[in-house]
């Protein structure tokens, strides 16, 4: 096709975009604006505004501390129970809010999808930014808690970005998968919140992984959030929280698998979104 070369864009059925990633980079401005919009809109017409992102994790932390720490009297590994819970709440909230927002993102932006072209991957991805902002707010609360309980941090905190990244990749992997499925099957709109609720109890948010029997630890680590939460506690709380490497590697492997699956599925369906949504 001699003439084809002189055209910038060739539209053909089933043509995998040659410059997919380059184009994604080109549209980074939109990525930024969608995230900015979601952040702006979030607290408009709310009376106490940003205070919500303080109240929510605080209350959840109190409830979990009372239930698991006071009533069930689970071991805390030598740190104050609120800190134990809050260190896990940070990644969990980031994970769950990214997952929920990204799963609904395509359906929530139907008008964009059917009227404008851009790489669709931007839509679920940009939801991660909102969660990161909330994460930053929660992190300040945790810092306050640690000062209150006089709990010192060590150099290990430098590893934290790695675990943040891991939580994000996990959330987006699921998010890509569910957002694409949600376009075709609206059942996932009901399924995802349920899964997140369920996930809170099967992930070590309200308790430490040490309560899991030793011979189940590896199997438990299939849940990718186990690796992330353990990593957070290891980085923030120190001593009592040893690093269980085989489990962590399994979590990472599973995360990578989920991300790859989600991304592949998303890209395969991406072309048909506008027709189906």
């Amino acid at each position: 096709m001699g003439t084809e070369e002189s055209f910038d864009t060739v539209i053909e059925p089933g043509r995998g975009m040659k410059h997919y990633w380059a184009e994604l980079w080109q549209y980074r401005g939109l990525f930024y604006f969608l995230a900015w919009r979601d952040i702006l809109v979030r607290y408009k017409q709310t009376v106490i505004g940003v205070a919500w992102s303080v109240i929510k994790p605080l209350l959840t932390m109190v409830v979990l501390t009372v239930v698991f720490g006071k009533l069930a009297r689970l071991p805390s590994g030598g740190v104050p129970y609120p800190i134990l819970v809050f260190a896990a709440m940070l990644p969990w909230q980031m994970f769950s809010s990214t997952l929920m927002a990204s799963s609904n993102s395509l359906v929530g932006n139907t008008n964009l999808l059917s009227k404008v072209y851009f790489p669709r991957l931007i839509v679920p991805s940009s939801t991660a930014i909102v969660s990161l902002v909330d994460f930053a707010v929660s992190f300040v609360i945790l810092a306050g808690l640690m000062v209150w309980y006089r709990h010192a941090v060590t150099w290990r905190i430098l590893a934290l970005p790695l675990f943040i990244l891991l939580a994000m990749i996990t959330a987006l992997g699921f998010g890509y998968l569910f957002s694409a499925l949600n376009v075709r099957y609206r059942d996932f709109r009901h399924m995802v919140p349920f899964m997140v609720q369920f996930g809170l109890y099967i992930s070590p948010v309200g308790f430490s992984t040490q309560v899991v029997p030793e011979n189940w630890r590896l199997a438990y680590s299939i849940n990718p959030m186990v690796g992330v939460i353990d990593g957070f506690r290891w980085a923030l709380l120190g001593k009592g929280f040893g690093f269980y490497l085989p489990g962590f590697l399994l979590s990472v492997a599973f995360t990578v698998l989920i991300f790859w699956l989600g991304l592949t599925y998303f890209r395969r369906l991406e072309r048909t979104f506008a027709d189906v949504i």
Partner: protein
Amino acid sequence: MTTVIKVENLSKRYIIGHRREASYGTLRDSLTEGGKGLARRLLHPFRSSAGHAFTGMPDTEEFWALKGISFDVQQGDRIGILGRNGAGKTTLLKVLSRITEPTEGRASIRGRISSLLEVGTGFHPELTGRENIFLNGAILGMGREEIRGKFDEIVAFAEVEKFLDTPVKRYSSGMYVRLAFAVAAHLEPEILVVDEVLAVGDAAFQKKCLGKMEDVSREGRTILFVSHNMGAIRNLCRKAIWLHGGILKKLGPVEQVISDYLLDSQGPMAISLDQRRDRKGTGDLRCENIGFYGRDGREVQAFTSGQTARIVFHFRNRSGNDLRNVHLSIGIDDQAGQRITLLDSEVVGQNASLSAAGDHRLEVTVDRLPLIPGRYGFTVYCAVNGEVADWIQNAGSFEVISGPFFDTGKMPPPGQGNFLLDCTFRHLEPDDRSDG
């Protein structure tokens, strides 16, 4: 001239589900269809399922929104796309702007393409005007710096300076549309694809938008423009494409395509008025319907410039008396609602006398119609002995297509007035004293 869009044999198929209300399925549907397919295969293991097992064949049907479309667009072309609802106009634009993928064929594009399929795509009601300008600009493909540079211009164009920091949900619909269009109008793509967006907004703003689009096209950019407004297409475009049932029916000079389209797709223009309640007058005489006829006395779908135009009014005499001195007057308005002329029986000294018996037909004929192509509205006024009997404002409209008013068959370009006048040009010899 370089070809900027090359469309080759482009087709788009949609699968329509008959059983489902919504266009998207639920998981249950897929599971039950899958289950049925499985059951079918278990029960009839040797029957070829031919891939239908999972789609549940009787429930879906193919629909070709576009079929084998081919055309080329040169740089700087302004092409109008005509066709009835469902002819595939929007699908074509969606394929070209990459929102949806074609099923067959290919389209090759040179240069940056921006599509405007809707005014205010991505506007968020909670955000302010200022915030929405940035958001919408980004969605349409502008960079942050680009938007910042054009911000003042956009705001001035939209005339919303005072409300920049008000959430757009508090905007009137007019303001909303103005702001949305203003952002889009300041895009600077090499190819601009526009769908029916000018159908919104008031007449003055529509005019402003069209003006802006003309500016854009004068800068040598290419425009594809879908509209049901023939006037807008005439003003903006030099060429047109007529789509019909997903097939490209005609591509050519705009006036020619519009004429063919109008003649093909509109039924007779006849207008029935007996249901109209918004009329004034004593009601002694009532106009009940109106027919439009051409040169050879046949009913027409559109009048032709330079040819005979006849309008026949069916009146019912309800007074029970003979009526003398019946004055019929037809005011003709252009698309902007401006009165351009009056056909008046009193002025030409041809008032009618009607007998007491019920139905009458009054006819007005213009021998060589001097109107330029376009759509015209008209008002019917009828008085008996100076007393208004029946008066219907905006009684209806008719279409005029280009025709042989002048011997050359040519027409002045659009936007150059409303009327065609007979005129003679000649070169005066130096000794010719006929100029006085």
